[in-house]
């Protein structure tokens, strides 16, 4: 055990944030910088007959105006889809659409002006002659006969179909089932709304033909690759620097390659000035890739003793108007593979149809396919328990994968690494005082109050992912991670990671890992991320992968450093390498049994650089780079118990207690881990109770601002009682599992289960989210009780 791993270190990134010194892209100011504003389509579907930019170009302070064809003629490439499924049909998508708009917010023209106010004024002067076309919406409805086609070449608006599981075993389970539980679920469209709107800036240095792009991305290296390889080939990769400095939240929505990341550098080179674009929140609503939006037809086979034997899901996933960067992954590979949940289910079959509509593209959003899986599964489990008259915890326990069966191979591809689901649920039950909770619920019901208790248990695959596996499943790249450690001659350390922090606190946790692995003071370690010139390679942060993959890459680099130091110490102390002890706790290296025959870390670092006395064949210097390609995913899990009360008069739901147990393996910084859990839980509560991106029939986004799109606020929530069990992951040396999304994956079904439980007297088995007060009141009002 080291000095830092497992302990609460206050975050080193915080002093800049709490003093208003965050380095967000919007804060960037460069000499002679111009501003870009982008004209967005007000229509969901329309042909562009013509665009007249004359008046805008003639305006004082306007530098230039560009339309889609300008960029195409200027050599930009189509927007790539970097996760593809067999035989999927990929719609054509340009950074600025030249001929047809396909969703509200589709990009039409770009204005470059002296300041943001002038750029905005100029947008009003661009005249676009639109021929409005009928629009299509609805994940399943869009496949119907006679629906308008979003892309003429893609029949029935179906981009792909994909299935996974053992269909025969599934069919057999339903033939033999005593009970079949069925439900149709709409897992609604969500709008990520990271608090920092997306932004992009670009600077062209003509003399050296170098381009720098600042962007609010979760993975700047992938953006660099996408630009130089596909979308902006005029800038070769070695002349392109992509910087994602401080990024104000992502939740998946900043993974993707966005049009502005192409438009800005292209424009910067054309006007030969640095340029900046910062999204308004309105633009975020209609251009950030959105989340969820499934229609799921589900059924579960159960025997009369309460054993789950089969699960069958036919799923329609709305992809929006185009395929966003990794969109095909979300409702398929990452979703169906989790249909086994925490349970032993022999017969599982899932099938997805990915469809196109005249709406904003849909892609990964916190949880990304996994909340959609856990929701349907945990709803079905609750419904099954109710039908069998079993307590929902008792029913779950009966079907849990026992801890001695790990690693456990599910029928849907994954090999779960480790877990002790019974112990986790025991702790949840104990912390909640579940028996007492149920008793109080009975008392409340006698008083006519609608109190409900919801339970959820879920697992996810995090730490994406083994390169060969993700490659076989459709990803164009690898999902390894890169880490490098540069020990300075003074013994101080700069570490470089390809992971990207946009709130996760990597500068702190990665420093803790390195400090322990090298036996040095955590304050002597600085962690660098988010700059492709400083960090040579990287895959970025998403899929709860940073600690399990990025952390391991740094462990590998640290191990290389240690090996070199041991060899150097052996040489300097005139001892055999085998006799050298690396004292992690005290940051020194000594000869076994002779502790005062030692060298400090700093002395060794200096010796490595002075080069005065090195072992034969050893080069001077002390820096090592490493990659880590995980052998498996990690499988964190959680158990949540929540108590709600529904106001009979208004239908409003109040969360009274929230008890959460998370198992994310070993923990590097408990404070940060808890922060991730709390934030994740609240985001999941948002889906359950409030959030809904609604499009009307004409494809207008009618929840296009924070006036109508509800997100949780401080006064919607109780103090969440969060705790952990720790089942180390055998998949990596740190024993860690991902934690960023687990809270979200479990909290959504937990809350819905609780509300359905509260309404038990009203003949309701399922309610589609969000559980708005009106929806609940309608149930109370029409079902009479």
């Amino acid at each position, binding site marked *: 055990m080291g000095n830092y791993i497992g302990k609460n270190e*206050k975050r080193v*990134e*915080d002093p800049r*944030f*709490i*003093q*208003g*010194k*965050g*380095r*967000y*892209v919007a*804060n*960037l*100011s460069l000499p002679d910088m111009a501003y870009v504003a982008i004209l967005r389509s007000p229509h969901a579907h329309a042909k562009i007959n013509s665009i007249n930019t004359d008046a805008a170009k003639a305006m004082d302070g306007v530098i230039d105006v560009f339309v889609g064809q300008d960029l195409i003629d200027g050599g930009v490439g189509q927007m790539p889809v970097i996760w593809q499924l067999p035989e999927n049909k990929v719609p054509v998508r340009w950074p600025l659409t030249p001929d047809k708009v396909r969703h509200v917010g589709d990009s039409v023209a770009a204005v470059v002006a002296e300041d*943001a*106010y002038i750029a905005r004024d100029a947008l009003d002067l661009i005249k676009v002659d639109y021929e409005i076309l009928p629009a299509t919406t609805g994940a399943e409805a869009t496949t119907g006969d006679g629906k308008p086609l979003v892309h003429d070449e893609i029949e029935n608006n179906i981009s792909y179909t994909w299935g996974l599981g053992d269909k025969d075993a599934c069919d057999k389970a339903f033939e033999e089932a005593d009970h079949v539980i069925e439900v149709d679920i709409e897992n609604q469209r969500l709008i990520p*709304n*990271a*608090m920092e*709107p997306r932004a992009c800036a670009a600077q062209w240095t003509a003399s050296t033909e170098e381009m720098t792009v*600042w962007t609010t991305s979760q993975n700047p290296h992938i953006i660099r690759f996408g630009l130089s390889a596909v979308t902006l080939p005029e800038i070769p990769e070695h002349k392109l620097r992509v*910087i994602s400095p*401080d*990024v*104000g*939240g992502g939740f998946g929505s900043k993974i993707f390659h966005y049009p502005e990341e192409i438009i800005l550098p292209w424009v910067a080179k054309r006007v030969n000035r640095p340029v900046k674009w*910062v999204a*308004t*929140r*309105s633009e975020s609503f209609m251009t950030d890739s959105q989340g969820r939006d499934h229609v799921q037809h589900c059924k579960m086979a159960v025997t009369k003793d309460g054993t789950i034997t089969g699960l069958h899901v036919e799923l329609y996933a709305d992809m929006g108007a185009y395929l966003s960067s990794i969109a095909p992954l979300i409702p398929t590979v990452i979703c169906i593979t989790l249909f086994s949940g925490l349970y032993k289910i022999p017969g599982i079959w899932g099938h997805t149809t990915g469809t196109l509509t005249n709406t904003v593209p849909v892609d990964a959003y916190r949880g990304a396919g996994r909340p959609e899986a856990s929701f349907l599964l945990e709803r079905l489990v609750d419904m099954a328990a109710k039908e069998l008259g079993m307590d929902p915890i008792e029913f779950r326990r009966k079907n849990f994968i026992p801890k001695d069966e790990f690693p456990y191979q599910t029928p849907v591809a994954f090999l779960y690494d480790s877990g002790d689901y019974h112990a986790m649920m025991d702790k949840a039950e104990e912390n909640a005082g579940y028996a007492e909770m149920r008793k109080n619920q009975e008392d409340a019901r006698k008083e006519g109050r609608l109190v409900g208790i919801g339970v959820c248990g879920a697992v996810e695959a995090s730490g994406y992912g083994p390169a060969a596996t993700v490659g076989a499943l459709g990803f164009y790249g690898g999902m390894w991670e890169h880490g490098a450690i540069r020990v300075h001659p*003074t013994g*101080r350390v700069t570490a470089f990671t390809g992971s990207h922090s946009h*709130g996760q*606190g990597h500068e702190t946790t990665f420093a803790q890992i390195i400090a322990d692995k090298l036996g040095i003071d955590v304050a002597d370690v*600085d962690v*660098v991320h988010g*700059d492709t010139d*400083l960090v040579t390679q990287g895959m970025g942060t998403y899929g709860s992968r940073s600690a399990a993959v990025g952390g391991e890459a740094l462990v590998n680099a640290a191990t290389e450093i240690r090996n070199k130091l041991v060899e150097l110490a052996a040489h300097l102390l005139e001892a055999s390498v085998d006799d050298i002890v690396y004292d992690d706790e005290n940051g020194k290296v000594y000869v076994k049994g002779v502790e005062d025959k030692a060298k400090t870390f700093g002395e060794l670092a200096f010796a490595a650089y002075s080069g005065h006395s090195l072992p034969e064949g050893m080069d001077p210097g002390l820096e090592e780079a490493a990659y880590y390609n995980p052998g498996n995913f990690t499988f964190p899990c959680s158990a949540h118990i929540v108590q709600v009360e529904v106001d009979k008069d208004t239908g409003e739901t109040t969360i009274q207690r929230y008890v959460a147990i998370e198992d994310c393996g070993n923990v590097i910084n408990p*404070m*940060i881990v*808890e*922060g*991730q859990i*709390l*934030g994740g*839980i*609240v*985001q999941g509560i948002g889906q359950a109770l409030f959030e809904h991106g609604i499009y009307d029939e004409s494809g207008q986004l009618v929840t296009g*601002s*924070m*006036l109508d799109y509800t*997100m*949780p*606020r*401080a*006064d919607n*929530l109780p*103090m*969440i009682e969060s705790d952990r069990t720790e089942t180390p992951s055998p998949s990596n040396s740190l024993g860690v599992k991902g934690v960023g999304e687990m809270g979200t994956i479990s909290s959504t079904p937990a809350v819905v289960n609780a509300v359905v439980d509260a309404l038990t007297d009203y003949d309701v088995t399922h309610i589609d989210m969000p559980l708005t007060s009106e929806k609940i009141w309608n149930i109370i009002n029409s079902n009479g009780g």
Partner: protein
Amino acid sequence: MSLWEKITNFLSSGYTEQAAAVPDAPEAEPETSNDSLSRKENGMSYTISMTVNGTACSGDVEARTLLVDFVRDHLELTGTNVGCDTSQCGSCTIIMDGKSVKSCTTLAVQADGSDVTTIEGLATNGDLHPLQQAFWDEHGLQCGFCTPGMIMAGVGILNENPDPSEETIRHNLEGNICRCTGYQNIVKAIQSAAQSTKGAA
């Protein structure tokens, strides 16, 4: 200063500059204050002056310039963020004449003659404000983007009520949205700052 410290200071400062692609905002230049709003000859520009973080400053703005843009672009105090355009999120919260206000919903000309404090002006002589310290101690932030607004809202809450209950804090954060933390540690931070201020008083 020892050689060792000098060397390490050099190393760390060298690195910081390299990584800090975005320059820190310079202190606002003290300028002479103009007593009243004066309209310039071209009819679209107005000279305003105000005290920002204790420093008198003035500038020429269009009437439509939002206070947040004046603070960010003219004074280069970029700590105050813009998170929405409908006055819902509170990222742009500053203190104006002792009260928390949304600087994205205030025209710069409306702030003429006022006393403004932004997140950059909260620490005194390098010492963090109790709320800044509490947000750090209680892990009250993750991505940091809503944080300046949250802290300034917290200042507003404690200005009104130095010893607020959890319920009062939650209710009075209704104008601020955080997407990362689930608010819990923000509430704890404000509670803790209230306690520490009380202890110090």
